[in-house]
């Protein structure tokens, strides 16, 4: 459908770099290793250019231009670190700080998932300290078990809204109000549970400042979490997940970054949030054997294995190997399924083995 884009050359901070027609300046800057800060840029949604962090100087343009949306052109001369760009970044960061909850060091407060605004302030510095603007923002989306929104940490990059509309496509949230009163809201300021929200948590994943966070792990310090990469155990998509653990508990689930996995950074409510079962008090913790009273009783592994072996071998001896059936699980690992058929065929001598689901 698309033709091969033409190669072109432009000048980036004094050096000749190659680019393809259709790319943005940000694409080129990233490839060249330039540190162009962003807040509202995200590959999975259309550029909006509203956070203004990524502005660069383009020769021939009267004003600074958003590199996330500005397309490359042959012969362009672009500066990412000129005095003008630097002054802009610092003043803009000063303005953001005046509209953001700060910690005792006057830095953007760390959130459950990190705060890129804080990092930008540390990396690029700020201009003068400006008085707080105390923007009046109405918000009430709290009625839901998973997603917490804190407008004091919101930079209105609109990524959550764009993700919700363009990627998850349920469009449960919106920019609402106008001017300094603008905020993220649901229709009629309803709780998320009463909207089209499907609680995929994508808003959390794309939020650059942690204004959107996981309620269950609000109190958890993300810097103390260990992260183990695994595969989600629900449907057949095979989403890659990062299991965040603390004190031998799974406290948070996130997706590895977009671009390298089948889920491309996305998760659904089950993958991201439905992990309470892992630490649930109903989990089986000991082998059980049915007693003469008809009830299940806890026992040792040794005994449980012995009873099971005797019981199954008893059936085999009485009715033959093919009177036994082995039902495997599409929920278990490949190795386990392999071992179950091996158990069925090699240890008991029957091909009566099948997994629970044909699809």
């Amino acid at each position, binding site marked *: 459908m698309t033709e091969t884009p033409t190669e072109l050359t432009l000048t980036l901070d004094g050096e000749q770099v190659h680019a393809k027609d259709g790319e943005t300046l940000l694409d080129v800057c990233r490839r060249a290793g330039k540190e162009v800060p962003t807040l509202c840029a995200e590959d999975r949604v259309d550029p909006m250019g509203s*956070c203004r962090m990524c502005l660069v100087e383009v020769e021939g343009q009267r004003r600074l231009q958003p590199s996330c949306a500005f397309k490359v052109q042959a012969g362009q001369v672009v500066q990412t670190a000129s005095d003008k760009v630097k002054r802009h970044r610092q003043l*803009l960061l000063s303005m953001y700080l005046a509209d953001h909850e700060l910690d005792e060091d006057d830095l953007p407060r760390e959130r459950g998932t990190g705060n890129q605004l804080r990092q930008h302030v540390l990396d690029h510095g700020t201009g003068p300290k*400006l008085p707080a603007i105390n923007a009046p923002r109405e918000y009430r989306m709290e009625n839901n078990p998973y997603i917490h929104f804190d407008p004091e940490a919101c930079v209105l990059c609109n990524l959550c809204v764009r993700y919700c509309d363009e990627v998850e496509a349920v469009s449960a949230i*919106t920019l609402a109000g106008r001017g300094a009163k603008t905020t993220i809201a649901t229709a009629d300021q309803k709780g998320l549970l009463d*909207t089209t929200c499907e609680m995929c948590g994508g808003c959390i994943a794309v939020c650059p400042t942690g204004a959107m966070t996981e309620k269950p792990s609000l109190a958890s310090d993300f810097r103390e979490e260990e992260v183990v990469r695994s595969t989600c155990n629900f449907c057949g998509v095979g989403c890659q997940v990062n299991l965040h653990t603390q004190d031998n508990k799974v406290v948070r689930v996130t997706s590895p970054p977009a671009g390298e996995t089948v889920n491309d950074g996305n998760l659904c409510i089950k993958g991201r949030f439905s992990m309470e079962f892992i630490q649930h008090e109903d989990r089986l913790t000991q082998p059980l054997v049915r007693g003469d009273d008809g009830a299940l009783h806890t026992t040792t592994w040794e005994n449980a294995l012995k009873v099971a072996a005797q019981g199954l071998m008893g059936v085999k001896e009485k009715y033959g190997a093919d009177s036994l059936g082995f039902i495997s699980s599409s929920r278990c690992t490949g190795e386990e399924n392999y071992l179950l058929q091996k158990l069925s065929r090699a240890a008991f001598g029957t091909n009566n083995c099948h997994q629970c689901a044909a699809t």
Partner: protein
Amino acid sequence: MQKHNANRPAVMDLLEHHGGLAPGVSAKVSEETGVPEADIYGVVSFYTLLAKPGVARVCQGISCAMAGSDALADALQAKGEPYEKVSCLGYCDQAPVQIDKDMELTKHGPRGSITPDDPALPINLGGQDDASYSALKAFEGMDPDAFLDQLQGSGLQGRGGAGFPAWIKWKAVRNEPIGTRYVVVNADEGEPGTFKDRETMLRRPHRLIEGLAIACKYVGATTAYIYLRGEFPAPRRALELALAKARPHLGGLDIRLTMGHGAYICGEETALLEAIEGKRGMPRLKPPYPTQVGLFGEPTLINNVETLACVPEIVLRGGDWFKNLGKTEAGSKLYCISGHVEKAGVYELPLGATLNELVQAAGGYVGTPKAFSPGGASSGFLPMEHADTPLDFKGLTKVGSMLGSAGVVVLNDTVDMAAAVRWQQIFFEDESCGQCAPCRIGCRMQRQAIDAFIESGDVASLEHTEDLHWEMEEGSICGLGMVASLPLLTAQKHFPSEFEGS
């Protein structure tokens, strides 16, 4: 994501029909249009006429404020009647004004003046409106390239404020690859001090329609939109009548009237397109420009009412004729004047007329003039030493101001400049769309700064205004943020004694 075949452009009319912002309305409109409910809530909460429907509105624009509109608000307050103080309503010549829930004027001063009938003027507000569509017929007999030569030769610049040569946009849209294209009339007149388009639509609607029809024919559009500000019911009626009368001349051209719902920012051309599409009026990034990617993604020519109204006479009398009407730049110009002058109104003068010439047409100053805004809030304030500076696009830029929409407001020495600044900064804070950080945060900060200064008399309150202005100008997406600090900055610059503090 919206449903297949969703009808987004219907959103705003339906919201108005169902009573604006109220529980359940977004859901209802969502069901009727296939647009997500949250999107609709985003829209209804953006536009003041939808977000707070059914109340009286008192203008707090600078001319009305100077004429005592606070008293109107106080009277409503005393009666316990629900009302809202709103940005300039576009009746500065009749200040102070108040409108009712149906947008009709309920309180106003005497009607403003206009230049008397003079057939030598291209718009000639005082003349009899001509529904013969002779210019359209003449255009149809012309070679398009010959027409473009005339348009280019006329030197016609966009009268909405930017002063961009009209012919370049016309040519650009015409030259786009074959396909749908649109012409959109920007009739969302809202710059404080400006009411010329209102008078044009009331008095010479056929001038506009004829100019629009010529534009459509030239660029190859079969559908056009007139985006009219919602607080203008009288111009709406005039346009509707005129459109009905014009229909036989238009050869099937579909001209649609879309009403605004209370957002100054929709006068910004790309925000206007968003509004017609049924979205929040947030300006788009440029490039791409509307001439390439405009309404519904198609090439679109957007012109101001006055710009299009100039076109018929250019067709009939030629580009040179028009050009020579001007003094320092091409053509005549509708200047609005209000504030401390004898006869506020709209005067069609050679482009490049000075303040003193304009005020002369308006019967002279009231009191001792101290300052003026040549082009609405966005142009900041100038001291009287510029009373003989030509009011044109290029010249005013050189003195750190701009002609903009030519909404001239005169302030006499009874006005405290800090108070005047405050009115303008309130305007920008209220009207910033909130999309980009420099404007959203900066507009509020500048308003808070002037408030703090007025309250405390402490000049330290104003120490960051220049830095903020720099960032708002460099960093904002659209023109609103770029100029929003000018009232404060220019007042500080030209009237330093009033900002020395106590």
